[in-house]
């Protein structure tokens, strides 16, 4: 597969649309009964509370039915009942691994709705924090993936060692390690001190060493390659039709990165590349995340070098009594897990009339069955891990 699919190209090409159908239903070998196993909701590797009802023929998966909603917290309805500002801390709880990008997407949507400008320095801070979030999310997702392969947590612990440093940075600027609640409509809440920027530079300087370490530990490991290559193939046609985004989509060979497509914020100013997979399997997803970490580090280096002075809040921005004019807006960013979007309708009141989240985790999860059919039961766990979900975002 050499040509990369661009979104929209498929609509013109009828031949390519044939692949969008579900894969043929896998037939059992014939003899014996199917073994029905309910994996989860309290299974060691379901990332929280998620259930997969699997029908097995031997160890081969014949059917897979994902069951979720155990962690439903009424996020969208709460968003409609609360003021615009009060929804900001709730977005932290969507994908609790990367709260800053959730903040960013929500702030972007509201800024679009209210026509609010953001000062330059605030944009730089958003990029720095967003890319740090991406690095720590990819590091821990790789750790979880290898953990699910049974490596007794060693890569996960290395990932957490680095994540700890990044979380300390988050705490030093936002006051909280995970529930940051940092961005505001029209800027950021607190300014970064020069000491914080120096600390961030120091952490970023240490990150390539960490990526190299994980690379040496895993990338050429024969067991890992044997386990992941050719497993859980997601065809680009299906990926596009199912609305899969993020590293999953790029591992399926589709060149689609919202940072490049939407040119939101100030991503135009940075020099970075988008890695693509050619084999569409779990190993590609793993490697795309590894390579994206390196690209994120490149963005971080540039942003930390170029960050200008100035205000971090637009003077026209309002914290209290914020009532955007009636209208609607959809703000989206390239979150570490994919396209995270917020759709808001304002009726001019203090709270949104409609508040809708497009969670990348949930939409990437919809192709789980298609990837897992016909695979070994041990690989289901692996494929599930390679989707990289957080149940807080799936169930909302």
């Amino acid at each position, binding site marked *: 597969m050499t040509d990369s699919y661009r979104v929209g190209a498929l609509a013109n090409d009828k031949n390519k649309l044939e692949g969008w159908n579900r894969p043929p239903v896998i037939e059992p070998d014939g003899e014996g009964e199917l073994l029905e196993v309910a994996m989860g909701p309290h299974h060691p590797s379901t990332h929280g509370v998620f259930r997969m009802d699997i029908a097995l023929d031997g160890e081969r998966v014949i059917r897979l039915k994902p069951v979720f909603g155990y962690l439903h917290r009424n996020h969208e309805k709460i968003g409609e009942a*609360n*003021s615009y*500002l*009060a*929804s*900001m*801390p*709730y977005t*932290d*709880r969507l994908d609790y691994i990367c709260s800053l990008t959730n903040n960013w997407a929500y702030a972007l949507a509201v800024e679009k709705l209210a026509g609010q400008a953001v000062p330059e320095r605030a944009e730089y801070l958003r990029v720095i924090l967003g890319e740090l979030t991406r690095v720590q999310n990819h590091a821990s997702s790789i750790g979880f993936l290898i953990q699910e392969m049974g490596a007794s947590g*060693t890569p996960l612990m*290395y990932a957490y*060692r680095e994540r*700890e440093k990044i979380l*300390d940075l988050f*705490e*030093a*600027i*936002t*006051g*909280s390690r995970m*529930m940051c*609640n940092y961005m505001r409509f029209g800027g950021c*809440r*607190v300014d970064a001190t020069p000491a914080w920027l120096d600390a961030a530079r120091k952490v970023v300087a240490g990150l390539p060493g960490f990526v190299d*370490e994980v690379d*040496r*530990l*895993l*990338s*050429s*490991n*024969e*067991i*890992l*390659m044997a386990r992941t290559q050719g497993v859980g193939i997601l065809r680009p046609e299906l990926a596009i039709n199912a609305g899969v985004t993020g590293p999953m989509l790029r591992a399926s060979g589709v060149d689609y990165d919202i940072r490049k497509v939407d040119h939101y914020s100030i991503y135009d100013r940075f020099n970075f590349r988008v890695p693509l997979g050619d084999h569409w399997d779990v190993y590609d997803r793993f490697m795309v995340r590894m390579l994206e970490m390196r690209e994120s580090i490149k963005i971080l280096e540039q942003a930390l070098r170029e960050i200008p002075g100035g205000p971090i809040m637009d003077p026209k921005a309002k*914290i*209290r009594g914020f009532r955007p004019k009636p209208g609607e807006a959809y703000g989206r960013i390239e979150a570490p897990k994919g396209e995270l979007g917020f759709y808001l309708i304002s009726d001019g009141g203090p709270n949104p009339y409609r508040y809708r989240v497009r969670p990348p985790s949930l939409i990437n999860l919809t192709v789980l069955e298609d990837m897992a059919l016909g695979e070994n039961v041990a690989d289901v766990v692996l494929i599930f891990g390679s989707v990289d979900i957080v149940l807080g975002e799936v169930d909302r």
Partner: protein
Amino acid sequence: MLGEGILKGLWETAKNFTGSYVSADRLTTVEYPEQRIAPIEATRDFPFLVFDEENRDGGDPVWEAGLRCVACQICEKECPPKCIYIERSKDKKLDYLGKAQYYPARFDIDISVCMSCQICVEVCPFDAIKMDTEFELSTTDRFGGLLLDREQLAKPNEYYHKIHPAEAAGVDAHLAEEKVKADAKAKAAAEAKLAAEAKAAADAAAKATGEGA
């Protein structure tokens, strides 16, 4: 060749194993109750109410008299999980500006509901509520023990200075500025009042003389 990647991985873990004995970089564990990490200034967890000690007043307990909170109930309204409960007082008291203000007759925060988002701090126009850094709050009473009342929430301004020095200094400067402005205003008002009174007296006198004439 087969086995190459495995050997590389083994080398990496061996390096980490020995490294954990020689370098602090490779052994990040902090043995919590005995060792603690240096506090980070920006840290926040639960809100507390600031009171000024110099503002004491007669027989009242110090904390009650010095509370900056004027029970405006903005934080109660803005709090996303609605964990603040305020009852406004019937009477008024003089605040630090010398203005008569209401005060909270009741101010409860249920920290089992609070999500430490700091929005109450941001919306407070009086710098009366700030974020604490105390995190060892475990209690055996799940409901009552986590419902903090006015007295438990009140903490002196010195404490605020201790946990967030830079931020507190800024707040103090801002408040001093306000006070100067308020004083000037009060002075002007007093002068205006005096002038008005003088004028009224003069008018009355003029009137009297007029009537008398």
